[in-house]
């Protein structure tokens, strides 16, 4: 239940960030071309949304297996060796997160102490920058979860995104629609002409 709600919220937030970036840049073009006007804060806000999108999304990516990596070699190993190597890799990922979390914390504290505002909006700079710390904390949580899954033998690797697999969804969808409906279009035209 809770887990489902968290996933829904993460997905909605991530999508919202992407859509807002897109619409903001689109609005800028419309304003400039259609109304001969500029949106003076648009560029800064778009870029900050981008930072949030990436740093927030990275942990979600670990959860759903959206990152990419080279797993052809580890997959050749026996199951338990694979699990062991994955644990080492997860450990190194946690080292990465730890180093960045530490650095981000110092950076953020310094910015908060100096107290500078954003260029175009009257907002203290450290507030939007806090995603650095938030992002790495979330990333640590996700890697710990993954590590636990490997320890308890529910997973053996990182489960990387597979563009080929995703493209196959498109193929499946096409096959299903070709069977379900009697289309007037493409597939059928090819079939008709093939038949004669």
């Amino acid at each position, binding site marked *: 239940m809770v887990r489902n709600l968290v996933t829904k919220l993460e*997905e909605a937030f991530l*999508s919202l960030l*992407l859509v807002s970036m897109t619409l903001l*840049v*689109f609005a*800028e*073009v419309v304003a400039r*071309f259609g109304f001969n006007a500029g949106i003076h804060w648009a560029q800064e806000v*778009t870029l900050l949304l*981008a*930072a949030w*999108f*990436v*740093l927030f*999304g*990275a942990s979600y*990516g*670990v959860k*759903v297996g*959206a*990152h*990419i*990596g*080279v*797993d*052809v070699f*580890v997959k050749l190993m026996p199951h338990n060796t694979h699990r062991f190597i994955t644990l080492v890799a997860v450990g*190194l*990922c946690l*080292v*990465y997160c730890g*180093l*960045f979390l530490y*650095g981000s914390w*110092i950076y953020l504290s310094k910015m908060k102490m100096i107290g500078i505002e954003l260029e175009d909006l009257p907002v203290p700079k450290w507030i939007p920058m806090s995603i*650095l710390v938030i992002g790495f904390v979330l990333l640590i949580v996700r890697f710990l979860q993954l590590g636990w899954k490997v320890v308890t033998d529910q997973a053996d*690797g*990182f489960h*990387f995104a597979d*563009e*080929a*697999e*995703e*493209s*196959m969804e*498109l*193929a499946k969808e*096409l096959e299903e*629609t*070709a069977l379900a409906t009697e*289309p007037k*279009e*493409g*597939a059928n*035209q*090819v*079939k008709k*002409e*093939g*038949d004669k």
Partner: protein
Amino acid sequence: MTIAVLFITLFGCMLIGMPIAIALGLSSVTTILLFSNDSLASIALKLFEATSEHYTLLAIPFFILSSAFLSTGGVAKRLINFAVDTVGHIKGGLAMASVMACMLFAAVSGSSPATVAAIGTIVIAGMVRSGYPQSFAAGVIANAGTLGILIPPSIVMLVYAAATEVSASRMFMAGFIPGLMMGLILMIAIYIVARIKGLPSQPFPGFKALAKSGLIALGGLMLIIIVLGSIYGGIASPTEAAAVAAVYGYFIAVMGYRDIGPMKGVPWCKEGENFVTAALRNAVQMLWAFPKSITDPEVRKVILDASKVSMMLLFIIANAMLFAHVLTTERIPHTIAETIIAWGLPAWGFLIVMNILLLIAGNFMEPSAILLIMAPILFPIATQLGIDPIHLGIIMVVNMEIGMLTPPVGLNLFVTAGITGQNMVWVIKACLPWLCLLLGFLILITYVPQISLFLPEYIDHLNGY
């Protein structure tokens, strides 16, 4: 020593299956901590800079979003119809039409495997029914599908532009002629095979049908016109054009073609409905479709899928910038370049070495990751040897195309195996003759820079340079 630590940690981390982004980041941080006195805080600052100071990079998520909207089965079908109507009546016409459909789909999607899946699913079966050998059909499509990253807009080109700071619009223009040329080479090869084997042709459907299918296909193809048109017509920069393309992609998929989303299955004109009521009904329904899109599961899935891919790429790029930062401050490409020049390796020799290196990398890794690691190293060397950055980019992209057809990691191979239901060995054999063609094309692209440079230079010339 620095070079050794950087690359050994990078490849070590990748080998044990860490996400590439983190492998890049961790090897960079380790090197910085060991060999320079930068603080962790400034490395965090550098990462934040990489995610929040690069406006041109935003073209990547926007293009991914636009092709996510247009990489649907419905769009593929419309493009195939148009292609069959155009070249289907020539000998071997169905195969040629398939290549053309791949080229058209390539022009709206930035992805090669998606092109194979969308076009291949329909046309391979159709070709087999028309009497083509299945291996022939599969080989043609797996190859033509690689054009997805060569014909603009292309995500891989944007990644190259990001890694080397060359102009994305110039890269797009440079990919145009090579893309068309490769398509044409495939079609000519098909024609020759068709003559020898006596493969069938389709009847010509007449100009009226051609015009109709062309008009329908135009909805999707407008995307490339919008993108290149707004960049060169003075409305927008590549980033802005990509945002416009994403909004257009939503409109055409949800409101125009109505393949997905709240308007799915709603006809433009019901039977017996007059024009005025149809127009009014459509207008009201379309307005209502905006708020409904927010909760529509299909629209949300498209956006979420695009978010996942974009986020993943941008996270790699941010870490790759740290990596490139280490490379430049430690003057690593410089050192390598000096070594190579000390060997007396000429430009053509360097290009051979580079192609072999990239082809090997293409066996194991995905295009964007390869580019992000290799481009910052190869770029300064190539510049010193007098190779044009844009030309270098196109060579790299063609190498990445080939990488999609080579085992063990070849995305197009996987998809082709999936849609034909055959095993990998069969697919590899089917692709092999066409792969040779592609290798020949790589040599051509590598040693005739004019193919890539003609169009961007011609446009410069039009602008009076």
